[in-house]
């Protein structure tokens, strides 16, 4: 389990491998199965998630600790976080489109999808539930999002190969993807106990 007395490196590793957000914690699965047919699209989605998650969980951490707690408004956590994330994604989208068209070409279509990606909201909640400091929270979000990127790229690489293989008719498409995910999850389970995490 992650707690605020772990050092930053262990928090990062825990989020990246031991408690991988997709394969061990089951958060963000819609996009995991939805956009992983091709490696390029997985890479785009993974990069967009990394970009937005690091930023949004920092912003929500600041809002929670400097706005909601002083005014005893913790019950507005869910509503305020989702609205802040949606607004932030819009702002980032406009900003990139204006100042960095190449990056926009690469991430553009994935950014709106990121808003409803539960991993983004979960990262914001988890950092607060574990009482992490600002820096720890930042590293934790980075670990989660790189773990997402790692898992979705590995998965789409496997799916590209599976698409060419002969498999039983009933297992074509989604069921075989779940079987693949199951084996990958088994592999990630092997990280349990790494550095005592």
């Amino acid at each position, binding site marked *: 389990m992650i707690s605020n007395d772990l050092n930053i490196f262990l928090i990062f590793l825990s989020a990246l491998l031991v408690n991988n957000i997709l*394969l*061990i*914690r*089951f*958060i*963000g*699965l*819609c996009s995991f*199965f*939805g956009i992983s047919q091709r490696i390029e699209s997985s890479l785009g989605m993974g990069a967009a998630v990394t970009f937005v998650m690091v930023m949004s969980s920092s912003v929500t951490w600041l809002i929670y600790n400097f706005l909601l707690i002083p005014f005893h408004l913790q*019950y*507005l*956590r*869910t*509503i305020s976080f*989702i*609205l802040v994330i*949606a607004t932030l994604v819009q702002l980032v989208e406009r900003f990139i489109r204006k100042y960095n068209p190449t990056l926009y070409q690469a991430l553009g279509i994935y950014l709106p999808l990121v808003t*409803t*990606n*539960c991993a983004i*909201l*979960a990262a914001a*909640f*988890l950092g607060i*539930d574990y009482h992490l400091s600002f820096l720890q929270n930042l590293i934790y979000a980075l670990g989660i999002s790189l773990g997402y990127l790692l898992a979705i790229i590995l998965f789409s690489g496997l799916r590209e190969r599976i698409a060419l293989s002969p498999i*039983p008719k*009933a*297992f*074509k498409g*989604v*069921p*075989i*993807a*779940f*079987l693949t*995910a*199951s*084996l990958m*999850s*088994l592999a*990630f*389970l092997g990280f349990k106990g790494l550095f005592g995490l």
Partner: protein
Amino acid sequence: MKKGVDVFVKGLFRENPILVLLLGLCPVLAVSTSTRDALCMGVAFSFVLLFSNIIISSLRRFTPHHIRIPVFIVVIATFVTITDYLVAGYSPQLHRNLGVFIPLIVVNCIVLGRAEAFAYKNNPFLSLADAIGMGAGFTIIIVLIAIIRELLGAGTIFGKMIMPEGYQPVIMMILPPGAFLIMAFLIALQNKLVKK
């Protein structure tokens, strides 16, 4: 009334949100390690879906078309917050088990999907039937997966020992890989049955 029944039944089988539409997978896989938690998750989910569908459908004539998504999200987030506090108040243990998955109902694709695809276009009565059907479809599948996983992984259902003495539990079933595995076989089975 007949139309209401049709709308209700389609959520159970033909348009089952999990098996057919593959939406809202996160809680289904994560919370299905024990039957009791799974049932509670199903109820909490249906509660949010029911009230958000009714409210969104009642407000559909007053909701401007281009800001409808933020309106949906605020309505859903309100009921998610209510559920979160109700569960925390009545059963802190359950609240710990379900953890982050209660607040995450807010970004569950099924709830927002039903708001956009159904409640925004139909009257409150049909939206109510739709919510009950979809909620029941969700609960049945999550409980079914939990029964299989708990039975194989711990030999129990609702915490009661079912398997004969000396049964060696397949621990993998209550670990994350088991969830993906059961899901793979359920969807394959459903493919097989539907295509006949």
